[in-house]
């Protein structure tokens, strides 16, 4: 996957503002490796699509610079950038057949008709739509239209492919199927892909790296595993996967990058320090629901608390417990579906616990402090 082919695309201090006062993208710096699959993940309005549009040339850059292979993109008109793009609503030309849609980029490049037919055929094979040349887009299902849109963005062999929430209009099952399809195509072709989505699960499946966007800047950029295991912002920790986030104050710094944090009314949690912190600082303590276990004996874990079971949901592969503990009314715990789990009932008082290293003390957002 990320085969270290050098920097392909670079964003340098890019700022975008539509009205001159509100910045939708703030001083963004980002380097994308050749052949990398990078996902821009974030809620709507976080500036991720704007970044994509600036790269494709459909939005101007207010300040800063975007370069492809070291060349500033604003010197190249959009139709000369050679970037394949898949749009949210596919943007297949409704008056042209699938074959004509695919040969469109080849026709405008003056490629001979025999070669066009050959490449259209290959592109359709790539997305497993052999023999669909003569269909009109309106006669295809959503998933098929999606495949055609991808094939069209690839048929002229661009080095960069951009996708703007391409699976947003599909139902869940089809979306999952297409995720693996896109992953396969990327691995097969090795093009640089920049993918925009607000679906964290999609980002996890597809990406070499994920850039988590919030309010026009990147909160954290890392491979999916790192984002999940080592989020360094509370926004990232709860945007990627489920997380229990407890508000607290640092009491004491301890050896091994650990600290004691007071949470709730009288509980104390041991957590890993992520950023330099002093006693008295406010922090968010985050612990994944699956890292919490039911304690069978006293002092089994370095963080161990009494909890009241409010609800139990059977999720198939795990049980989802909704607990009240540490001053938190909806503390989530996921217990693997293994023999012996059935001992817990709603209303029970149980002991839960987790290791200090599974628990991260995340810095407060500056603007959220009050």
């Amino acid at each position, binding site marked *: 996957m990320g085969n270290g082919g050098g920097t392909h695309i670079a964003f340098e201090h890019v700022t975008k503002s539509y009205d001159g006062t509100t910045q939708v993208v703030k001083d963004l710096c980002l380097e994308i490796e050749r052949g990398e699959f990078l996902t821009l993940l974030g809620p709507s309005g976080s500036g991720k699509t704007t970044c994509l549009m600036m790269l*494709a*040339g*459909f939005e101007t850059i207010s300040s800063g610079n975007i370069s492809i292979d070291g060349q500033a993109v604003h010197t190249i*008109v*959009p*139709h*000369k*950038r*050679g*970037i*394949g*793009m898949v*749009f*949210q*609503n596919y*943007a297949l*030309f*409704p*008056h042209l057949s699938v074959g004509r849609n695919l040969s*469109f*980029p080849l026709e*405008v*490049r003056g490629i001979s008709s025999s070669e066009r037919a050959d490449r259209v055929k290959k592109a359709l094979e790539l997305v497993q739509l052999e023999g669909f040349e003569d269909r009109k887009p309106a006669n295809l299902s959503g998933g098929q239209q999606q495949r055609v849109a991808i094939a*069209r*963005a690839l048929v*002229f062999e661009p080095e960069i492919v*951009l996708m703007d929430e391409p699976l947003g209009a599909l139902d869940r099952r089809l979306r999952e199927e297409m995720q693996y399809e896109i992953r396969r195509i990327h691995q097969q072709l090795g093009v640089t892909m920049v993918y925009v989505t607000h679906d964290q699960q999609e980002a996890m499946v597809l990406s070499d790296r994920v850039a988590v966007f919030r309010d026009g800047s990147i909160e954290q950029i890392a491979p999916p595993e790192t984002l999940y295991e080592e989020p360094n912002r509370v926004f990232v920790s709860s945007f990627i996967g489920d997380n229990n986030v407890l508000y607290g104050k640092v009491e004491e710094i301890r050896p091994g990058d650990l600290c004691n944090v007071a949470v709730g009314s009288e509980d104390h949690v041991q957590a890993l320090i992520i950023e330099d912190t002093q006693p008295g600082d406010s922090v968010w303590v985050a612990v994944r629901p699956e890292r919490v276990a039911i304690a069978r004996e006293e002092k089994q874990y370095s963080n161990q608390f009494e909890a009241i079971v409010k609800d139990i949901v059977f999720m198939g592969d795990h049980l989802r417990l909704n607990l009240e503990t540490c001053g938190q009314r909806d503390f989530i715990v996921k217990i693997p579906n293994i023999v012996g789990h059935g001992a817990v009932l709603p209303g029970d008082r149980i002991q839960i616990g987790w290791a200090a290293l599974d628990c991260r003390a995340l810095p407060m957002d500056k603007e959220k402090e009050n």
Partner: protein
Amino acid sequence: MTDKRSGVQRLIVPVGLVLPLIAFILVTFVIPLGSMVIQSVHDPEVAEVLPNTLNLLSEWDGTSVPSEEVFESMAQELVLSRESRTTGKVATRVNRIASGTRSVFGKTARRLERIETTELRSAMIDIDDRWKDVELWIAIREAGREYTVKHYLHAVDLERELDGGIHPVSEDQRIYNTLYLRTLFVSLAVTFFCFLIGYPIAYAIANVSDSMAKILLLIVLIPFWTSLLVRTTSWLVLLQNQGVVNDILVWLGLVNDSDRLALIHNMTGTLVAMTHVLLPFMILPLYAVMRAIPTDYMKAAASLGANPAQSFVRVYFPQSLPGISAGCLLVFILSLGYYITPALVGGTKGQLISNMIAYHIQSSLNWGLAAAISVILLTGVFICYFIFDKWVGVDKLRLS
């Protein structure tokens, strides 16, 4: 039981809602249209005045002067027609077939009242010797036909000779076929000009910011809301010999003061004024279609390597086709029947077929002919509509 009742109720409401419209259309449109179609082939006036004579003439050989019996009946019915004041109607209709015979009937009817004789044939020939012309009697027989296609023949510059054959009228009397062709030409030209001017405007309105689009739309709509008469007469002010356009051209030195351009009361005036008046009918459907074309298509085309011109020709233009066909159909069909504008600014060279219909309704009072021309025009409109439906499909029409 309940199902049936609710089914009926479900029908009653929509039918009730459209009932006033149906009644309105029936009274103001279907009935007049029907009577017009009937009028174009049905002409009972002569048959009502001369029933007996016509009956006798149906057995006449058509080569020799009719018998005493026919003259007798004609004399009787002419005298009666004088009392019911219908002699003129007969004279007018016979005169249309055999011109120059109008005076025969009035004169004969007037004199017959004072004559006491049984030898009516020689008496009538004494009054007017045209009574011994076989052509006059054939014309009377023709005029007496209750159902006739003569108006249609007349409306396409044909006539039925007295021997029964159909021939084109003499060249100096041909007017209608030229007018149909002129109407067709003007309609096509106006449609073309409206498209040429309207397409860029519609494109602009559909692609500028919302606030700008509102202003532009208003500029298109204000003339649309202004009285047709006001718009047309304002072209008189602009285009006349001492008008604004000529004044500017003279002031710029492009035209000599002595030979100012004739811009009005001719074909130019008709084309200019009609293009202006009909322009909104082109712009509005085009705008409605263009506004619905997603901007993503143009972005997609650019990302696929098409330059702006290629994107427009290959992606945008084909998608605007439903708007183009709707606009062209509207403008073309409206042009075919246009009346006020050519009447005011067209002069003699810029008159269209509808002006001729108006002339026959208002001045010559030949309603049968007016009806026949109208039916031909209406048929033309229907043919255009069906050709359009075949080519483009009326269901693809999108009006704003």
